[in-house]
């Protein structure tokens, strides 16, 4: 039941929406007529992005919260659905590298690994638990996990992040298997390297000109939200379905 989804009129939620890819995704979804709840930890930058969308005529709302905090999950979901209605599109974009400069895995403090897993893996799981039920009862919905090639390749020094993203990829596949036939699609998208603050924190020496623009990547991801089959892992730059 992988029907094409129309963005217009959908309630959407994007985490990590105050900058980088999350911001671009929220803007793109709003531009295409979704009502978007933008989630981020810091109120100031988030409000600026929301105002920017509204100035362009989009429907956007700010929800301040930390996806890595267990107690915040229902508050985030409740505010978002109070503001934009039922969520038909959820994008798990917020994520953390852990301490930078990046460390070897065995130099990573156990607490830092746990914190990365909370934000990148357990947080999205918790939020999906809250949002997926109503999607399934309505027979439609898309949940997107923003992944990374670090989920697949064992890059030294990307340990905590890579482990969390590999876990998230598998979370995505298992959810897709369990939700087959419900109309809820689960996607994992590896956006490739982009000119973002996160990329600069991880690889300060990278030349921004060699990196993709978040807005262009967001446009492609929204196309995937419309029509990619559930369980797919889509990877830049080819944007092919890598199963």
């Amino acid at each position, binding site marked *: 039941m992988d029907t094409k989804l129309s963005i217009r009129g959908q309630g959407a939620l994007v985490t990590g929406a105050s900058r980088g890819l999350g911001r671009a995704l929220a803007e793109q979804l709003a531009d295409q007529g979704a009502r978007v709840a933008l989630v981020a930890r810091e109120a100031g930058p988030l409000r600026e992005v929301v105002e920017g969308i509204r100035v362009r005529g989009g429907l956007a709302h700010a929800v301040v919260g930390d996806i890595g905090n267990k107690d915040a999950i229902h*508050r985030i979901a409740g505010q978002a659905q109070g503001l934009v209605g039922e969520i038909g599109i959820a994008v798990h974009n917020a994520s953390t590298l852990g301490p930078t400069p990046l460390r070897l895995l065995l130099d990573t403090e156990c607490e830092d690994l746990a914190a990365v897993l909370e934000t990148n893996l357990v947080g999205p799981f918790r939020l999906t638990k809250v949002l997926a*039920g109503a999607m399934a009862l309505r027979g439609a919905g898309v949940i997107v996990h923003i992944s990374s090639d670090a989920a697949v390749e064992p890059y030294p020094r990307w340990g905590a992040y890579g482990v969390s993203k590999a876990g998230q990829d598998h979370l995505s596949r298992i959810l897709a298997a369990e939700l087959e036939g419900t109309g809820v699609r689960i996607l994992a998208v590896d956006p490739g390297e982009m000119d973002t603050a996160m990329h600069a924190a991880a690889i300060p020496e990278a030349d921004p000109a060699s990196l993709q623009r978040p807005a262009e990547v967001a446009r492609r991801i929204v196309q995937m939200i419309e029509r990619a089959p559930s369980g797919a892992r889509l990877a830049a730059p080819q944007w092919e379905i890598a199963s």
Partner: protein
Amino acid sequence: MKFSRMAPRRERAEAAGGGSAPLRTDEVSRHAVRLVVIDADIPRLVPFRALPRLLRAGDLVVLNDAATLPASLRGTTANGTRFELRLSSPVDGSRLTGVLFGDRDHRTRTEDRPPPPSLAVGDHVQVAGVSAHVVATLGRRVELIAPIAGDDLWRAIYATGTPVQYAHRIDALPLHAVQTAYAARPWAAEMPSAGRPITWDVLLGLRRAGVELATLTHAAGLSATGDDALDHALPWPERYEIPKPTVAAIAAAKARSGRVIAVGTTVVRALEAAAQHGPLRAGSGVATLRLDPTYAPKIVDGLVSGLHVPGESHFELLQAFAPRARLEQALALAAGHGLSSHELGDACLILREAALRPGASR
């Protein structure tokens, strides 16, 4: 009569029991809920997860997808008197509608709390850290307008609000404990708790059994205020919204002689209200009707509910679906097996006798 979703009976111990053997009153894990099946047969007991086996392919289960608000908000008057505002309706723009309670928290029974401050139109108060002014009052019921709306007002409510709860539970209920697995918009002042044992296993099991699922949103209000005059008039008018696909699914179920099973009294109230003046209509409305033993449901053929005992108004409602003698028989069975009548406790499935035979005329 009133619906008692969140067990005001435990706020009034003398009303509990009503001559039947007592039920337990403790919470039950949502994975361990037991279900008393009440139909034309002798009442019987099954695990809740057996629900899919009790229904037939072609039946339709209708659920209330309202999420539960953190509807208990702290407030102070201009002269510093503290109070609690319990929202009784969904947040509407910058408007907050609810009931005032005197200072103290949920651990004091509602009827034992000091009277709340008396507010008048035009008064300014602080609620959830936001200044607001009173635009309407009716005794302890008030409507407030906040100077903010949207993002800021929702943030204030979720930052400081807590779920409404009653004195029988001492420790604070976390927000997640009062949500169903399929909750969406935060419209409910108290949890539509009949849906609490509907796990994903049950939802997917129902689908596999050929049972269809549909939703509506019903703004379940408060179940008790501790004020006799107010409680007597409960439930107050409640907002609901029935999507078009749900109306179509009900028509299709009726056409194939499938049964419409409501999960919770809020679903019964919404569907019967929307069919009060002719065919069932999609869209939003306000349910004002009251259901009692003489009511003949037009839409709903069966009901999943918590357990309710004689003397409780909710027990009256159940009699619209099954004769009193059979309900009492079912309660005796439940009591004998140690089932709980807590709102976060065990459950029953009542199938109307007229709806038991495929193709039975109604």
